[in-house]
């Protein structure tokens, strides 16, 4: 592993670059195909509304994948990610309005865990349209 960020250069509270990820219907169809998750709530508005949703929603695992990019782009080496966990708290609603939705991800170093292994805990805040869509979202990352 070759993380580009040095353990010595971060401290508790260090912010990672804030990121936004757009998501539209075409993106969800593409993710459905690549991941094999063809649940119609992720592409079929009629079905989504029939089961009581406001509209088509993004795959939870898609949101989790986007949030991880804040860390993997920060370290450069995705292999530096040792642990990653989230709770799915609210859906990301994706209207068919030519714009779709935006996932916003803020992250910070919450703890320096191990000076020998040079590991840190990173806490993520993931929102869409003002609602927190992932809860208890955190990662353990090995730095350089």
């Amino acid at each position, binding site marked *: 592993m070759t993380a580009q960020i040095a353990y010595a250069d971060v401290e508790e509270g260090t912010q990672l670059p804030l990121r936004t990820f757009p998501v539209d219907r075409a993106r969800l169809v593409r*993710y459905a195909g690549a991941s094999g998750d063809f649940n119609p709530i992720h592409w079929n508005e009629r079905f989504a509304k029939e*089961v009581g949703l406001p509209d088509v929603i993004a795959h939870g695992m898609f949101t989790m994948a*986007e949030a991880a990019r804040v860390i*993997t782009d920060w370290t*450069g080496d995705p292999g530096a990610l040792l642990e*990653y*966990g989230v709770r*799915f708290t609210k859906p990301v609603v994706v209207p068919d309005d030519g714009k779709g939705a935006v996932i916003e991800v803020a992250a910070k170093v919450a703890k320096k865990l191990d000076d020998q292994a040079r590991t840190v805990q990173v806490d993520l805040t993931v929102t869409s349209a003002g609602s927190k869509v992932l809860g208890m979202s955190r990662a353990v990352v090995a730095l350089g």
Partner: protein
Amino acid sequence: MALDQSFVGRTYPPSRPYEVGREKIREFAEAIGDDNPAYRDAEAAKALGHPDVIAPPTFVFSVSYQEAESVVRDPKLGLDYARVVHRDQQFAYHRPVRAGDVLSVTSTIESIKSLAGNEVLDIRGEVQDAEGQPVVTVHTKLVARAVEAGGTGGAGEAAEGE
């Protein structure tokens, strides 16, 4: 109706092997819009110390969930699959998944809990390579919502998880 606690600790035998393809990794990376060269370019991955292109961190879910799903659909467990939503997801990586891996998953029901009529099921998947070495430990927590009295009122929450 509460699920049978005797299923806690039950282990389901390893899946059929899943061979990780270079083009499947690329397709997945493109689907999440991630242009990290470690997912596409073997030389770039090697420069980071990996033997071949690696997969994005959440890629392995597609492999592990096939197995978790067969646990959830075990007719003896008696879970109503239509009411199941994804609540928590955790990965602990022993190493990154990479092209050429032949992965198999052994799933174990870690716990079954009842919370306000909802059943919370914690499934651990141990993903290993062809040599039997651990690659990723996957924890997937699923909730089967309580059957509500009339209407589809709960369906919005239903999909909260997913």
